[in-house]
């Protein structure tokens, strides 16, 4: 099966709308305008940000701190908004 966008004719199309390119390959991090930055000094490891991330782009490291996966984080800012200690700031990309 090829990537659907590489197909040219209906004849190449599978019967069902399937693609063996999983959504993991869709790096939505490129959509980001604001970048969440975690301040480990302020963070109390409550993991509310981890629970609130709508794109499963936050993981928790061995020490209990949140690690943001910038490959997929779209920069929506929910984590920063929900953080009870304002430990996450949203910085403009490209600065």
């Amino acid at each position, binding site marked *: *099966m090829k990537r*659907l*966008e590489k*197909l040219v004719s*209906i004849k190449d*199309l*599978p*019967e*069902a*709308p*399937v*693609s*063996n*390119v*999983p*959504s*993991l390959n869709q790096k939505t991090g490129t959509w980001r305008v604001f970048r969440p930055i975690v301040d480990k000094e302020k963070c109390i490891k409550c993991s509310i940000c981890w629970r609130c991330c709508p794109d499963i782009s936050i993981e928790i490291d061995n020490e209990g701190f949140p690690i943001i996966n910038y490959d997929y984080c779209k920069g929506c800012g929910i984590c920063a908004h929900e953080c009870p200690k304002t430990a996450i700031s949203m910085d403009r990309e490209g600065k």
Partner: protein
Amino acid sequence: MVKKIMTGNIAAAWGARLSRAEVIAAYPITPQTIIVEKLAQFVSDGELKAEYLHVESEHSAMAACIAASQTGARTFTATSSQGLVLMHELLHWASGARAPIVMANVNRALAPPWSVWVEHTDMMSQRDTGWIQFYAESNQEVLDTTIMCYKLCEDKDIQLPAMIGLDAFYLSHTSEIVDIPDQEKVDKFLPKFEPAYPLDVENPLSIGSLSMPHQWYPEFRYKIQEAMERVIPKLNKIEEEFYKEFGRKYTGPLELYNTEDAEVVLIISGAATGTVKETVDILRKKGIKVGVIRLRMFRPFPSDYLVKALSKISFIGVIDRSFSFGHEGAIYSEIKASLYGLNAPLIKNFIVGMGGRDITTDTITKIYENCFSCLKNNKIDIPVEWIDIKV
């Protein structure tokens, strides 16, 4: 092969059992409940090795069936009326994802007012969901069609879901003699389901993700229609194989009964066909040339077959046990459209038996008389007539 007395509901459960359905997700509703009760019993007794999922609604039942089907499990569900229309959204998803689910639907009227009795509106209003639709006349046909549907739906050329309608009470709760085929023979007839695109954690797939207008949406829709066009030829082949294996003959999308020399032919679907056949026998004994065509299948609609079957008929009465409000009976619309541009005979629509109102030989005799009177005057007084309305 064992012959037993059983209801249509039990026959549907046996159809799923003999087909070795692997996942069953269903929600009970009158008059379908016995189908899921029987299947639950088969599973708990170890007679059917299937995953039986208790879900909280018909919507969830269909969602579970779609996902299960996409992992490569042979999937069955059953519902009726309100349950079917609650599933509506996911019916589109099932065909769009090309999941070959087979479903028994006990045809029942929709509320309000509440009615648990037969009507075809529940299934007719699923016309555009991309499902193959069968309407059964007997319990034997319910069982046999379930088995044949898996072979049809899972075929690589088809990959579409199908629903089999059985009339509330007239089939669902009526006991008739049913021949239960041998499991070994069914196994031979029906190979294991091999999905074209199985969901597998080792080889991830994405199914049904976004398609922008410039990408592939129309093409996927076009492919569903191409598959639909292959359904009837494939069905004919499968029925031939079925006949060889089990000795029971089915006649494709239509069943013709005494139409050869008939002046008036009625077209009908579902269990009430039996009563029309009985009436034909009575009238034929009096030398009146009548016949009946049973529409076994509503989607894909067998236009070509009907045009051929109706080519020598002077008058057609179309019986709809459902209604498209603001217009006319749905079967009537389709048949008129099929005959458009041809040298069409006179054709009249009868709306009969809604909400389970009994269709008797008297009702049908009256309809034939009505047709002959129109034929004699070469004029149709009321093109769409509701029969047995209390005035």
